[in-house]
Structures are given as structure tokens and as C-alpha cells.
């Protein structure tokens, strides 16, 4: 084989290789396509057989109707409120605990850190029954604080922030300490501004986990008005004369923040997962 024909062959293989995965990726994206194209057709057409790939008429105002009539708009704001609140509490609590673990000396520190790590092994679904009973006895069933507080104190954040704080040079805060700045002051005005990558990562994953959370809000939010978006989606699923087109519009709305963040922050996500890959025992 000549060099020329060999490069031509490897170029052809390369194109085939890229094209093959492109087809797989497009097939993989089909459920997204199906969701959006069913959101913008009439309900009769969603149920019609034979199935049409594209809507007869694109009814874009179905999104507006689903937002106001079902009311997915309200559910959207409920979800946003819950997810943002949990994220804010988690970040504050994790920074405080993480700083104590990274920089302060106190008896039993390492044992406590181990206990924090140990709690990560307890699966969430195991705790829902006692947690519900606690929320019930506090009178917080069907309230936002009932949904928010029990999930806002995860111990992973404290560990993540500790690891990051340890990588910040001690000298940076020593000058401030000599000037008599308090620990809280040092944390807020020196450490936190330097830790934005870690705080961003913790916020992103906390927000997404809560935005997508279903079982816990399903149990606590017993009334329709306070439902989060995933819980709200299931309310209309079993009703007579289900408006499938509106439900698809609601599903699309619920996917919007995650899709947006996954595309926008792909580098951050890849780097954080790569960190896991690197730590996978090596």
C-alpha cells in the first residue's frame, strides 16, 4: 500500500467513525425531540394512530397554556424556591463546617470528619419514613420549610469545602489574623472569594439534585399549590382526559434549567467528574 492510499483509507475510517457516533447521538436525542414536538400539537393528535413524526400544526402557545392553566408556572417557581433555598443553606453550612475542619484545632476533629464521611453511605430512601415523622411532629407537612430543611444539611459539602480550603496557602490569612481579624471575617472576605470554583461546583450539583428530587417533595407536599415541578407533573398524569400535550410542555419546562446548565457549564462538570475518575482509587 502506498502512503497516499493509506492516509486516504484512514481518513475514510475517521469519517465513518465520526458519522457512526453522530447517528447514535441523534437517536439518543430522540426522546427530547418527541417531547417538544408532542408539546406543540393538539391533544387529539398526540393520541392519534398512525403516529405522525411532526405535528400537523405547530401550536406554540401550548407552552403558555401549560404555564398558566395547569399551573406549571407556579410549580416552576416552587421548584426554583426550594432548590435555591437548599443550595444557599448548603453552601453557608458547608463553608462554615469545612473551614472548621480545615483550619481550626479542636478535640475529636478527625473522628468527627470520619463520622461526616460515614453518613454519606446511608441511602436517602432509607431515611424518608423517620424524616417524614420528624417533619410531621414539627408541624411542617405541606410547608416549604418541611421540604427544604431536611435535605439542606448534607455532609458532602463540608468535606468538599474542607478539601478545597486545605489547598489555600495559610500565609494568605496569617496577615489578617495578626491585624486582629476574626475567623468569620477571614472566612468571608479572604477564603470564600478564593473558593469560588468549589462553591460553584457545590451549588451546581446541589441545585440540580434538588431540582430533580421527587420522592421527598412527593411525600411532604400533600397539597397541589405547593407542589414542585416533578410532583406537579404526576398530578395530571392519571386524570381523565389527560392533556398529554400540556404535560409534555411541562416536562420540557422542567428539563430546561438542567439542559441549559449542562451545556453552559460542560467544562466545570467534566473537570469535576474527571476529579472523581482520578480519585477512583489511584
Amino acid at each position: 500500500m502506498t502512503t497516499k492510499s493509506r492516509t486516504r483509507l484512514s481518513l475514510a475510517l475517521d469519517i465513518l467513525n465520526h458519522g457512526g457516533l453522530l447517528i447514535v447521538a441523534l437517536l439518543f436525542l430522540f426522546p427530547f425531540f418527541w417531547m417538544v414536538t408532542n408539546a406543540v400539537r393538539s391533544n387529539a393528535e398526540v393520541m392519534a394512530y398512525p403516529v405522525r413524526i411532526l405535528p400537523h400544526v405547530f401550536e406554540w402557545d401550548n407552552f403558555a397554556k401549560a404555564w398558566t392553566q395547569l399551573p406549571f408556572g407556579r410549580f416552576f417557581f416552587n421548584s426554583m424556591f426550594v432548590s435555591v433555598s437548599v443550595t444557599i443553606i448548603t453552601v453557608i453550612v458547608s463553608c462554615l463546617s469545612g473551614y472548621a475542619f480545615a483550619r481550626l484545632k479542636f478535640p475529636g476533629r478527625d473522628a468527627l470528619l470520619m463520622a461526616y464521611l460515614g453518613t454519606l453511605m446511608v441511602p436517602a430512601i432509607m431515611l424518608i419514613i423517620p424524616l417524614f415523622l420528624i417533619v410531621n411532629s414539627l408541624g411542617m407537612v405541606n410547608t416549604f420549610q418541611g421540604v427544604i430543611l431536611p435535605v439542606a444539611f448534607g455532609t458532602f459539602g463540608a468535606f468538599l469545602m474542607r478539601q478545597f480550603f486545605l489547598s489555600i496557602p495559610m500565609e494568605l490569612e496569617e496577615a489578617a489574623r495578626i491585624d486582629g481579624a476574626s475567623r468569620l471575617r477571614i472566612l468571608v472576605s479572604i477564603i470564600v472569594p478564593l473558593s469560588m470554583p468549589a462553591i460553584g461546583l457545590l451549588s451546581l450539583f446541589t441545585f440540580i439534585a434538588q431540582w430533580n428530587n421527587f420522592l421527598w417533595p412527593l411525600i411532604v407536599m400533600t397539597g397541589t399549590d405547593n407542589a414542585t415541578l416533578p410532583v406537579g407533573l404526576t398530578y395530571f398524569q392519571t386524570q381523565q382526559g389527560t392533556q398529554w400535550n400540556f404535560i409534555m410542555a411541562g416536562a420540557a419546562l422542567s428539563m430546561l434549567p438542567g439542559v441549559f446548565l449542562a451545556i453552559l457549564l460542560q467544562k466545570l462538570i467534566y473537570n469535576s467528574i474527571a476529579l472523581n475518575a482520578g480519585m477512583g482509587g489511584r
Partner: protein
Amino acid sequence: MTAINDVTEVAGSQKRSRWGSRLDRREGRTAFFFLLPGLIGMVLFLVVPIIASVVLSFTNWKLLGTPQFVGISNYVRLFTADPQFWPVLRNTLFFTAEYLVLNIVISLGLAVWISSLKMGQRWFRVVFFLPTFTPGIAVAIVWMLIFAPGGFFDFIMRSISVEMPSMLTDQTLAMQAIIIVSLWAGVGYNTVLFNAALDMVPQSYLEAARIDGANAWQRFWKIRLPLISPTLFFGTVMTAITSLQVFDQIYVMTRGGPGNATATLGYAIYQRGFQNFQMGYASTIAWVMFAMIMALTAVQFWLQRKWVHYDN
């Protein structure tokens, strides 16, 4: 681990003068206030629930009325008298086994494929990762429409003349539908994880093997796979833990049916706890799930000696 030991050494090696111990006490007090919010949350929403869960599993509490201590009779009833328990356990193990194997095989395949590309690696990663960041409930609802009788899936099957019953209403196919949905929603994370691990394999190793005459197949099995095996192990353990807890897809698509063909442990906990309000009995099922998670993780750690390759 190393970091923790280093910090202890530094702390221990400092000389404790009287002046130092006063400072230490002040620092301890600061640490206490810094840790307080997290500690209150952890005790109230983690430690107390864990203890309560153990206690509950030995009672017959039904939310209303006073709980009675019933000893181990919940556990006895679960294993000997409950007609639904064994099918639920079998469904859970079946789901976990099939889902785990397919998830690892598909995500590893996609990761290798993506790493072989010269262009657009990050965009392919994003595509397969997208469902990971979207609500499982929304994913399940979309797939429910696809699998609905007379829906898109039936339409495709009929147009290629394949005669088959509707997925979600068939005793054996319903679980397969749940697994397909779970795979679509779940392969993305492991794909990115394994892809990142493959990116970390030093190019010089692969070059050296190429010069020694190893073909692509040999380079994969003899070099890349052993080198990423710790990450593969990590991904397998985490995926197994989450798949034993499967709930969202089942709640939306089948509610455990038809019959109890897709009822899993996670669904049984919800059903017993929040539909029948048998808080004690549901806690018993939760502890069986915990025991299974621990057992499966232990088995995987035992098996890793045979296939996971660690440097030094």
C-alpha cells in the same frame, strides 16, 4: 486519608505552652460555633432518623395510634409470610443485575468511542450527559408516551411487522421498559467518568505498545482497561448503590404493575409507608434494602482484587 494524617501530625507536633492552650481553647470555641449549624442539621435530620428507623422496624406503628413494640416479628413476617416480599426482592435483584451490566457496558463503549474521535469529543459527551441533569420524572413521562399502547414504539414495531404486546402492560416486558428508560437516563454520568479516565491514560504507554506491535484491540484490553479499572470499579459500585434504590421511573410508568411485575424494594417502602401507613413495616423493608446495599458493595470490594489494577 493522607491529608487527615498530615494535619494531625502538624497539630500534634506544636508545642503546648500555657499561652498556646488558651489560644487552643479559643479556637475550639470558634470551631464549635462554626460547626453548630451543620451539627444541628446532621443530628436532627440524619442521626435521629437512623436511630428512629431501627426502632420503628421493631414496632407496628401505623402513623395513627400508639406504636407497640413487636420484636422481630416484622422481619419474620417479611421473610416467611408476606406473599409480595420475594417477588419484590427478585424484581429488585433482576433490575439491578441487568441494569448494572448494561449500564457499564454501554457507557464504557460510548466512552471508548468518544475518546477515539479527533473532533467534537466534548459535544458528544454533553449529548449523552444531558438526561443526567434532567428530572427523572420528566424523563419517565416522555418515555411513557413513547411506550404507551398505540404510541411511537408500537407504531415502529408494527411498521416493521414485529408482533409484540404493548411494553408497559406486559408482565415480562414492563421491566425491560423500565430498564431502557433507566439506561437512557443513567449512562451519561458513567460515560463522562470513563471517558475522563481514558483521557488520563498516558499517551506514552500507548505509543510504546504500538511500537512493540500491539494492535488497537490488544492496547485496549492490556493497557487502557487495566489502567482505568479503578475508575471502572468506582463507577460500578456507585451505580449498583443507586440502582438498588430505583423508584421514580416505576412510580410514573407502572406503579409496580402489571400485577407486581415491576414492584421493587424502593417502591415497596413507599407503598407500605405512605399508602398503607405501615411505618414500622416499611422501615423493616428499608433495613433489608440497606443490608443488600452493604452486601453488594462488600461483594464488589471482594471481587475487585481479581480485576482491579492499582499502581504500586
